């Protein structure tokens, strides 16, 4: 019958004991029940698995072809299609002012003051309550923003183009750490910095970037950074350094004087996460061409607004599927604890959506100090993500996994079937506007958005 028994054990781990002692080839499966979905949805999806598979092949091949390049900069109102004077873009799925969390409200207030549309908190709130201000997700305007992710009309944005398909993605310049707008701060200091970024940083950077004959290829920076200890979500030090090396001569070339050149260089240099906004835009640029492929179960967006966690699938077009934004399993900075934490917030989960960030944790062992684990923990997280992704990236390789490509392209069907949720590395904001980052750690995406998305996908057949 069977010449050499070779067993896959699904269930009680104690059953592997004889295989270990008798040296029988075996593999234990840490099985868990699939996430609960309606039986009708399950049977539709199962029935059409071939159609889904083919749609996903098309989707993932588009993702893999992506070449994100930094082409230039401009004001949001000038560059972002359909941007309006009274429109404020925010991170995550759609949300009303009433439901916004502390840090996002603070950031909105700060943006209105920066725009000159309000003078202080109360006039800002009055303006919002009057209904004159519109809100929309960054993602619906080809943009992405970390933490509160607020983009207002006058803000300068990076313009990243996916050279393979011509689509654009936009993000603001990262302000740095501590009391900044994206954490909901709106003091004079914050507004002053935003003005400086608009009046000094932006013009120099814009010129520096645009006068290059060879534009800065973000894909190249990211793939090198992954081999230098970054995962380009929570760890951007190497990528920021590479960007700095690339752009420094251009800054020196275009700056009107030594002081301004120095101030720009020092600004970038003092912020280990300067590259984050660029990596986020790069990831969005890579994923957007894979949208709107009928029957595809590829996740094209994961984003949070501090209240809700939302996803979008390729096969269900622009529909948002949401659930409650969870709290992060974090290590807190001195003086803070979980009682101070805001729920998960920001568009930065677009990095995980593209197979980077938490999915590439095995490239960034330094992250694990926030997880309370060992280097093996980082390896295990990355390895687990291969269970729910469509492919291994042909470009972004992880040295510690023997240069295996990053687990790319989250498949909502696998998420449901295997009950494995995407892992996200992220910072934690204080729940009060303007305090800033209070910790960092790892979280699992919540199940509700994926269940909803699966159910909706089933209805498209």
């Amino acid at each position, binding site marked *: *019958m*069977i*010449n*050499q*028994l*070779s*067993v*896959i*054990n*699904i*269930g*009680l*781990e*104690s*059953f592997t*004991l*004889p*295989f270990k*002692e*008798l040296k*029988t*080839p*075996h*593999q*234990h*499966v*840490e*099985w*868990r*029940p*699939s*996430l*609960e979905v309606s039986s009708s949805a399950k049977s539709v999806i199962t029935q059409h698995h071939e159609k889904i598979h083919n749609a996903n092949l098309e989707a993932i091949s588009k993702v893999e072809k992506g070449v994100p390049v930094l082409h230039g900069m401009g004001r949001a109102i000038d560059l972002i299609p359909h941007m309006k004077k009274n429109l404020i873009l925010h991170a995550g799925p759609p949300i009303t002012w009433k439901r916004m969390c502390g840090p996002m409200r603070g950031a909105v207030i700060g943006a209105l003051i920066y725009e000159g549309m309000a003078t202080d908190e109360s006039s800002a709130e009055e303006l919002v309550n009057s209904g004159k201000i519109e809100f929309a997700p960054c993602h619906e305007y080809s943009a992405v923003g970390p933490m509160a992710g607020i983009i207002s009309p006058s803000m300068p944005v990076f313009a990243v183009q996916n050279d393979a398909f011509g689509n654009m993605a936009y993000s603001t310049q990262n302000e740095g750490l501590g009391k900044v707008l994206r954490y909901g701060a709106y003091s004079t200091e914050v507004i002053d910095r935003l003005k400086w970024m608009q009046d000094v940083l932006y013009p120099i950077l814009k010129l520096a970037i645009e006068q290059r004959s060879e534009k800065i290829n973000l894909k190249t920076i990211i793939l090198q950074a992954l081999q230098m200890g970054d995962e380009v979500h929570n760890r951007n030090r190497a990528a920021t350094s590479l960007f700095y090396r690339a752009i420094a001569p251009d800054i020196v070339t275009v700056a009107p004087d030594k002081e301004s050149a120095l101030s720009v260089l020092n600004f970038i240099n003092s912020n280990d996460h300067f590259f984050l906004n660029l990596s986020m835009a790069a990831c969005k640029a890579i994923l957007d061409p894979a949208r709107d492929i009928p029957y595809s179960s590829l996740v094209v967006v994961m984003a949070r607004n501090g209240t809700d966690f939302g996803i979008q699938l390729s096969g269900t077009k622009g529909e948002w599927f949401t659930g409650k934004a969870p709290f992060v399993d974090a290590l807190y900075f001195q003086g803070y604890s979980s009682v101070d934490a805001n729920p998960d917030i920001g568009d930065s989960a677009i990095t995980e959506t593209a197979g980077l960030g938490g999915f590439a944790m095995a490239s960034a062992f330094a992250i694990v100090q926030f997880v309370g*684990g060992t280097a*093996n*923990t980082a390896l*295990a997280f990355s*390895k*687990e993500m*291969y*269970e729910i992704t469509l492919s291994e990236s042909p470009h972004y390789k992880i040295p510690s996994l023997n240069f295996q490509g990053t687990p790319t392209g989250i498949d909502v069907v696998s998420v449901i*079937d*295997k*009950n*494995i*949720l995407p892992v996200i590395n992220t910072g934690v904001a204080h729940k009060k506007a303007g305090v800033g980052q209070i910790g960092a750690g790892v979280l*699992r995406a919540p*199940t509700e958005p994926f269940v909803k998305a699966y159910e909706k996908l089933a209805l498209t057949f």
Partner: protein
Amino acid sequence: MIQVDGKIIKGRYIDSVFLMRVAKDVRAFTGVLDSAFVVGTSENIELLKSSALGFDGLEEASSNDLVLAIRHDGSNPEILKEALALLEVSKKEEHAESCKSCDSALKKLPSANLALISIAGKYAADEARKALDKNLHVMLFSDNVSLEEEIHLKNYGRDRNLLVMGPDCGTAILGGVPLAFANVVKRGSIGVVAASGTGLQEVTSIISNLGEGISEAIGTGGRDLKKEVGGITFLMGLDLLIHDPKTKVILLVSKPPHPEVLLKINEKLKETHKPVVKMFLGESKSTLVEAAAYAVALSRGDVYLSPLNESALKDEADQIFKTIKKGKYVRGLYSGGTFSFETQLVLKERGHKDVFANAPCTGVNKLANSFVLQQNSIVDLGEDEFTVGRPHPMIDFTLRNKKIEEESQLPETAFLLLDLVLGYGSNLKPLEEITPSLKVALNSSPVIISVTGTDGDPQDRQRIIHELKSLGVIVKESNAEAAILASYLLKRLE
């Protein structure tokens, strides 16, 4: 002050045996009266509430979460934290190299040819189907799989020439490898197809102990020989052994098949000249030990000699009778369902009346309440009413130990009759766990134990037999012998 503290752990899933071990360890903490650690299904939530283990917020739990509940005297404010720490051992192990699905397991082990599935029945059929799609034979240990699902899976498997052993298949030995609850036996030329797990364990162990060996031992699950299933797996297993060059003698073990299925089996048997021993419990008067001995004789070309020495057993009963202090009845507390069945058959056949059982064969009375034993009671502690929320009695001795102590002390109880099943899957430290209760029992009543297993099993069989005898337990090496001894003893007590 007695209080219940609990915690809902969101989004974790840990196998039920591990959970129960943690709950057991927590029960041993100082000040703890009871503890449970379960998946947050609505059934389990009700179970917790009815066991006085409910706590505020319990209703929030879902079947994606784990629930830990501790009822304690309040003396240790850190009790919940300490209990949760026991989980962290598991967390570290979880992050070690592991697969989360059959697909990824196949990538790591492309040589795989069998999937051994022991997850909750609700999900097991799906996983079995997936395994069959990947061209794997399936051993389905899980129970609570519907009859319809079983029929579908077995047909699906048959179409692909793949075995589906189960559902509710506890034992198999393939290529010499013990699967689930099975013993380490010598390899040889006797092939077995069995619809009973402990039945398979008994015959394969005895055959090995007699010096012969097993080619393959195929389990079919308890329902295979019903009319609806039609003996699909039994027939496939039989076919396999008929064509297997290593197999020279075939031994079939089960309860009597449905007549239509029996016809098919007999048709199949015409295809071979190999000698076949048919052990249909309840039909013939023979016992598992006799069937095993007969298969051995056939494989050796020897004349068959019965392994049962009636006069020696009768004499032994007379000796034991002298030590009986009280009562006139036997209390049989079994962990193996087939053993409790075989014992009932022996008693029935030898004319004993007043025999009760929770899972009776025809001619034996059904216990009105499985927990309240009457007269001669033969109890299968592996039945559902005993195993809700606790591991099988072959793994966890807690319930049986309690009953050993209780029943032995009742005035109507003359002696106890137990099985002790060794091998993989079973409790690895049976002696340590059962001895305290045996000591209590032996103060009041003699105890007869049949030990099933081989010297190759992970438990130290020789030491176990030796220690039990030192305690004063009467040890037999087959269930039938123990049952026959019990019968002679009961006759003296009448």
